[in-house]
């Protein structure tokens, strides 16, 4: 599929929907429907609105239309040894950069390099009234006006349809080394806790099924020295990290019900009756199994975090907001989408 600018058609659709007060269900690559509530509305597709708009390797900044596939961007970046630092998951080849930003999804590198929103520099978007807007820019430091670009990141399109995003890039590290060792989850947590405060070239720390894996990246000399210090067996094949990133490990594939629990990284194991995968050096725990939603949410809140149901039957996948917080978010929704046209109810019934 070739590059195309569908901005004007998209705008017209939104203007019309705003006029009639009809909801639009925003779709691009179709890989990020979950987690999310079911949206009642006509489909508004951004899949064909694609193409890299700007990319100057010496700037470490890329601007692309929202419907551009992540894989297409990554293939281009690889020619200059650059990459998307937040490692957005790619559940399928169609997964787009706009979807990654709109849903704020980040991969295993997140605790070491930053989340999706940390790499967002600017967005071009259309709000729920059909108004084209531009926020942020393509420079790294920019404090002019409120940071609406980062507000859009993770808003699931409910504040604006992203047309293009400007993203800060990272250079691909010189070399990569995965280390693996057997251990129980408690011991894995202890090791993760001891790693965080050490100046190591880490880019991944995860535990699954009795195995703790550490990913080291950086200058070859630094990586090999850290590998010697940390011990464990070298894993020749780094595919596991890619499958973790794309949520394609058997753990994810086989899950009928999948929870993502975000916690302070030092929080105790969840100790719920479900298989657990620990990522983000302790800050992200995946649960596979039929666990009671109230129980998961209560346990997550007790540990200082929150839980999202990514797969399985539910009316409310996202952690409930306190009344004052919900009221404030409703007021923000009204600023950008007064007639609730854009993905109405996708995040919360009230938004």
């Amino acid at each position: 599929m070739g590059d195309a600018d569908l901005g004007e058609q998209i705008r017209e659709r939104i203007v019309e929907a705003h006029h009639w007060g009809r909801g639009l269900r925003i779709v691009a690559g179709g890989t990020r429907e979950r987690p999310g509530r079911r949206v009642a509305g006509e489909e508004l597709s951004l899949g064909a609105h694609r193409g890299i708009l700007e990319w100057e390797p010496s700037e470490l900044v890329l601007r692309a239309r929202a419907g551009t596939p992540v894989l297409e961007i990554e293939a281009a970046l690889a020619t200059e040894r650059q990459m998307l630092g937040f490692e957005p998951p790619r559940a399928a080849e169609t997964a787009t950069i706009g979807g990654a930003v709109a849903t704020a999804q980040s991969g295993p590198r997140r605790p070491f390099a930053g989340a999706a929103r940390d790499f967002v520099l600017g967005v071009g978007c259309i709000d729920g009234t059909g108004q084209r807007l531009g926020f942020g820019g393509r420079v790294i430091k920019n404090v002019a006006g409120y940071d609406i670009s980062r507000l859009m990141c993770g808003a699931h399109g409910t504040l604006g349809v992203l047309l293009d995003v400007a993203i800060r890039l990272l250079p691909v590290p010189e070399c990569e080394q995965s280390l693996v060792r057997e251990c129980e989850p408690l011991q894995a947590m202890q090791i993760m806790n001891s790693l965080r405060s050490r100046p190591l070239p880490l880019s991944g720390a995860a535990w699954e099924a009795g195995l703790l894996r550490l990913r080291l990246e950086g200058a070859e000399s630094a990586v090999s020295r850290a590998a010697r210090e940390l011990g464990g067996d070298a894993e020749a094949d780094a595919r596991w990290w890619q499958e973790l990133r794309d949520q394609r490990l058997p753990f994810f594939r086989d899950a009928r019900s999948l929870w993502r629990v975000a916690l302070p990284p030092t929080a105790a194991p969840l100790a719920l009756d479900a298989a657990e995968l620990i990522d983000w050096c302790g800050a992200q725990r995946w649960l596979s199994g039929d666990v009671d939603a109230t129980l998961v949410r209560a346990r997550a809140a007790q540990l200082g975090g929150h839980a999202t149901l990514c797969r399985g039957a539910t009316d409310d996948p996202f952690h409930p907001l306190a009344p004052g917080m919900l009221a404030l978010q409703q007021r923000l929704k009204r600023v950008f989408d007064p007639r609730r046209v854009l993905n109405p109810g996708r995040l919360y019934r009230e938004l």
Partner: protein
Amino acid sequence: MDTPSPEQPPAAVADAATLCRELRALLPPGAVLSSPSELAPYECDGLSAYRQRPLAVVIPRCVEEVQAVLRLCSARGVPVVARGAGTGLSGGALPHAAGVLLVMARFDRILSVDPAACTARVQPGVRNLAISEAAAPHGLYYAPDPSSQIACSIGGNVAENAGGVHCLKYGLTVHNVLAAEILLMNGERLTLGGEGPDSPGYDLLALLCGSEGLLGVIVEVTVRLLARPPCARLLLATFDSPVRAGAAVASIIAAGIVPAGLEMMDGLAIRAAEAFAHAGYPTDAAALLLCELDGTEEECTGQLMRVESLLRAGGATELRVAADEAERLRLWSGRKSAFPAVGRLAPDYYCMDGSIPRSRLGDVLERIAVLSSEYGLPVANVFHAGDGNLHPLILYDAGKPGELQRTEELGEKILAFCVEVGGTITGEHGVGVEKLGAMCLQFGAAELERFHAVKEAFDPAGLLNPGKAVPTLARCAEGRRMHVHGGELPFPGIERF
């Protein structure tokens, strides 16, 4: 051009005496200041060209007291301006003539440092550097390091999304803050973000960072701490033109190296800094680069060799690696004192804060040089070259009739060019009152309307730091007319800074 005062007319002018009496009833003795001599120290922040005394200064000590002040002011329709250490460079903490200045200086406690989670929970009045000092015993530090870090407070850092010389690699404040407790103008307390990642709902923490005190009053901040890199090496390189130095910077980034800091100064700034700090800079150079690499010993050594060869290939006339920690700090001292150093060259200086795509540096410097000679005002350039944040310092004499006005005109032309090449009018100092006019260059009416509406969602009565950060549409319309007609300014009686 900017007028010195916030734009909105004072809200219903409260009777100062009554208000002070009511405030005193809520707060312990000594927490309310109202006599002219008590108010004087608070009439400006780090941008001293703008001065305004508030009705009263309040200095609360706990969240409940802040809530009481906010509730009273909400009920009375009195504007409130929060102030941290008062080091801001855009007038963001300039008091409101009919309002209360809420000084958060007594919120100065570090509540906890968690070395395993690598976090610190602190009150907003804690100084930036004090966080790193408290974390140091654990081998940790707080990364954002604005030049004022010895004095500036974390609450103000969050409000302004402060940067520093190391943000190319370690990010701005927004990248290093995990959570904030805020009070809305009505006194309601909210937690934004959290110690676990990705709080549910909209990312209001990102929105708070850089919101210049217009959305809420920050009463607590949780920051992320990083492991102190065991090794840091500083390299100095000189060039016979700033454009060549800019090209060398691009070659470092393109080679996949992200230095911890990458700073540039032009000839005028080099000579001023050397005369001031005796840092050991070669004063005959047209441009000077400071490139800091950090990480493990191995990383530093490897990167240093690569950067040296890139700089040589880029035409560096001199290359020097700081031999020891003392020399490293001395070389940095010149850069860190560049503003006051340049300030000695003329009675006054005006500091700009544009951000540009690095690849346009040559064009922008050329344009600044042309404008500088056109206006007959020298400009020294200090540049966070790694992240494209340019600080042109315009030298002028406010005592000479009309020179201030020409300085501002020159400044606005520089910012207009920054916007034209794809940059921004402010990279790290904020809009405050100073850049309200320049905001009209960057945003159209639709964006400005949304900004005002976002504020209204947090503060429906518009009482929190009113008139700052976002210009009214009327102001921008007036500004555009001014450009069309050129030359003669409307309302010649208005003071223009």
